């Protein structure tokens, strides 16, 4: 066994159909950027880490805290998405409940429309929400419930927007779920008056206020002099979304989920959008500068510069200490959206770390081209991966850190690799400048934890190093 790679023999090979979804970046001379296969349904029989259309819609709309989120279907879909996302609300906590029509056999036979209507009427009477979202699950699409008609009726009867979300699980991939959520949001945009909005007003799209991240970004913008009309959907309220068309600019982060809404808002309301990321110092600073520049007011730019300088000065000393400890360590990144992966590659580089494996569940061709451009030679780039592949790549590259979500965490730990949750279960805000510091802290806390010294993997490396020295 070579010192720098672990034994990969015990794990099976790639599924042949997936060969074009995995790429190893060549060295600098031969590194032609190529198109990867992506955005296709997972191969039947693979252990995919991906979810479905419903999941995509549910994660995007979930943080809207003054709305009812009613899952129309059997109980599972509501049960598995109940309060699992740390999308914080500064006000109502209604979104954290689990509401379901709990469809049973008789409903499947005779249809679930009556039950849906009764459930909606009861919920709205009880909670007086500002809107209701109705998520269609797989079988609703098959048994043919006219969810749109029920939503229209209930909306008329109650006077609040009742929005159908066409999120039948099998009708595409998670990206299609984002799109269905964007459709629902787009129906809300433009329903409220826009009087009183300041000259420098923007929307944030694709930030979900995980661990309070939206609050950090909003505070930066406020200091610069920019108002946020609506954040979709972190800590969002229905009324704010209704006024979102009054903003001058849409900042789109997490491109996968919200770009479609941004495009639609541009078409209908002429609001331009910029793709940004709030992760890492460089991307966060760039997002603020671009926003300030957009309005062309020098005082905004001055304040942005001042803010960025102050924030960076504030975190740099501590960040450097972490960098010293982390320099030269290797990371594997497997996240939902590719845009996040770009930021993570850069953020890890800032910590002196190398990204040896990088992949996403929902990246498109352009995303993967960009990933190839920013990755180091030898980096493995992968679309829609599965645990075995990921384990294999981690062992091959002998990484020290895995960045992923709930299903990847125990795999990393089993192999003796540190882990950072950059998904729904993050406990600390990772966005913004303070987020970069939190990220460094979390990465350091895991990668350099003494527990790994006790694990067989490190024991082996220790022995190898000793042998190499002698």
């Amino acid at each position: 066994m070579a010192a720098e790679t672990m034994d990969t023999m015990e794990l099976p090979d790639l599924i042949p159909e997936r060969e074009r979804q995995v790429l190893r970046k060549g060295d600098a001379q031969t590194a032609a950027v190529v198109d990867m296969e992506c955005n296709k349904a997972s191969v039947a029989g693979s252990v995919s880490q991906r979810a479905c259309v419903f999941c995509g819609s549910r994660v995007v709309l979930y943080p809207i805290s003054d709305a009812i989120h009613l899952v129309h279907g059997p109980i599972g879909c509501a049960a598995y998405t109940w309060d699992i996302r740390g999308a914080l609300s500064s006000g109502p906590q209604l979104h954290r409940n689990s509401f379901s029509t709990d469809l049973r056999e008789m409903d499947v036979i005779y249809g679930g429309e009556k039950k849906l209507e009764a459930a909606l009427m009861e919920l709205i009477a009880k909670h007086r929400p500002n809107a209701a979202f109705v998520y269609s699950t797989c079988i609703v699409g098959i048994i043919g419930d006219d969810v749109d008609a029920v939503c229209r009726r209930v909306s008329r009867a109650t006077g609040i927007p009742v929005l159908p979300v066409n999120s039948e699980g099998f009708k595409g991939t998670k990206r299609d779920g984002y799109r269905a959520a964007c459709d629902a949001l787009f129906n809300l945009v433009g329903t409220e008056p826009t009087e009183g909005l300041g000259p420098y007003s923007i929307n944030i799209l694709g930030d979900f206020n995980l661990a309070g991240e939206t609050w950090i970004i909003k505070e930066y913008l406020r200091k610069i002099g920019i108002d946020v009309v609506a954040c979709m959907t972190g800590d969002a309220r229905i009324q704010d979304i209704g006024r979102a068309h009054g903003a001058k600019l849409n900042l789109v982060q997490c491109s996968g989920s919200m770009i479609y809404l941004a495009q639609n808002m541009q078409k209908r309301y002429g609001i331009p959008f910029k793709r940004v990321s709030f992760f890492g110092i460089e991307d966060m600073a760039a997002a603020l500068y671009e926003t300030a520049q957009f309005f062309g007011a020098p005082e905004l730019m001055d304040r942005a510069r001042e803010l960025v300088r102050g924030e960076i000065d504030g975190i740099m000393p501590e960040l450097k200490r972490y960098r010293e400890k982390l320099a030269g360590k290797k990371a594997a990144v497997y996240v939902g959206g590719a845009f996040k992966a770009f930021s993570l590659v850069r953020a890890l580089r800032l910590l002196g770390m190398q990204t040896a494996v990088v992949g996403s569940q929902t990246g498109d061709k352009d995303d993967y081209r960009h990933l190839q451009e920013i990755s180091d030679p030898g980096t493995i780039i992968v679309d829609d991966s599965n645990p075995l592949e990921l384990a294999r790549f981690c062992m091959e590259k002998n990484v020290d850190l895995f960045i992923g979500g709930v299903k990847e965490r125990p795999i990393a730990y089993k192999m003796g690799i540190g882990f950072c949750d950059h998904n729904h279960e993050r406990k600390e805000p990772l966005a913004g400048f303070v987020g970069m510091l939190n990220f460094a802290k979390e990465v350091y806390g895991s990668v350099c934890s003494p527990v790994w010294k006790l694990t067989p993997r490190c024991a082996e490396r220790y022995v190898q190093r000793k042998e190499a020295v002698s």
Partner: protein
Amino acid sequence: MLDATPSTHSAREALRINPAKTCQPIGAMYAALGIHGCMPHSHGSQGCCAYHRSHLTRHHKEPVMATTSSFTEGASVFGGLANMTQALNNIFTIYNPEIVAVHTTCLSEVIGDDIPMMIRKAYDEKIIPEGKVVIHANTPSFVGSHITGFAGMVTSMVKHLPSRAGEKHGKVNIIPGFVDPSDMRELKRLAREMGVPAVMFPDTSDVLDLPQTGKYVMYPHGGVTLADMKTVSHSLGTIALGGFTSTPAALELESQYGVPATLLELPIGLGTTDLFIDALHKVGGVPVADSVAWERGRLLDVMTDMHQYFYGKRVAVAGDPDHVISLVQMLLELEMRPVYVITGSSAPRFEARVQQLLEGRVPEAVVKQNADLFDMHQWIKEAPVDLIVGNSYCKHIGRAENIPTVRFGFPILDRMGHRLFPTVGYMGAMRLIEKMLDAMLDKKDRECPEEFFELVQ
């Protein structure tokens, strides 16, 4: 989060709020993981599989392997045969399991996929390699709950895996019910202490409670082996723990192969564990081991030492039917008052059994099957309790009403003990007693006036 819960209970017909159950397939997936070398396969959209794996991972903090047929719109129109065939082909080619355990989803059930036909075809076309096995359970999400799905897959195991050939041997089958790997490990330990050679199925110990080895293993060393499953038809008898989860499989074994079934409730608490030990003694033909008798004695000692703190305490219990039925008996042994007792599953027998247990002892008790945590919260608002025992979702109620909450059952998403320490057997009862007492005394220590704050309890 629960601000809007009204303080009086009202009946609902169409709406489920904060469920105390989930859907069938996850139970089938969990049961399948208890077979050595098994790949659970979800025949439906890929979201189902991802959700079940995530949910099981959150509970067990372990990697959970399962494959999916990845239904698309085409499959939902033309049927899932092509997906199933491709899936089985890929699974055996790439992941090389000993056995694939297929379960359905609401989608594949509604479109009417004929799973036995698909599997037969895969055997005929040699997609399933020689010596490999595929079993299945129908688990429509709109019928029953995760408990039904678990029972269905366990029944499928005894329908498909035992062999008629072979001779009687001296082993005893134990069907553990939908319990944690730590519980299964404990049940096997008790059998070992008693000197009873046992085959447990399913058995997720050493599958979902793995040691840190520095390696990620696709098929861990635990789980009932196919070789052992082949011979469960010739065991001395079957001890089935849990009427809802284990009885159907035990009766199937009895009717098909004449293996006598001993049907018990889950051994949670002293009395139900006594019955389990008694069954090991009778079916295994062995005397009760001294070590087990001493264990029982230690439990009894704890109960007598601490009974003053439990007497008369009002408890709300939510969970799966088998768990709750046994827990209620344990609470009664401690002279506690289980005043609200619910399960999310549709289980009329549950109500009858719990009412029978509470009759004459806790006349004010409300017992309800097919209930949810919103029901329970409203009742607690009407008349509060001293303790809540249930899964992690109960913590919302505990916080809203400032009531100590002990995690018990499935899922537990926010604590770790269940992975390591059992709730079954005498040891499990000791642990539950400790947890309940700690929770109640911690609250008292935190909140009572200084002059009543006691060092010695």
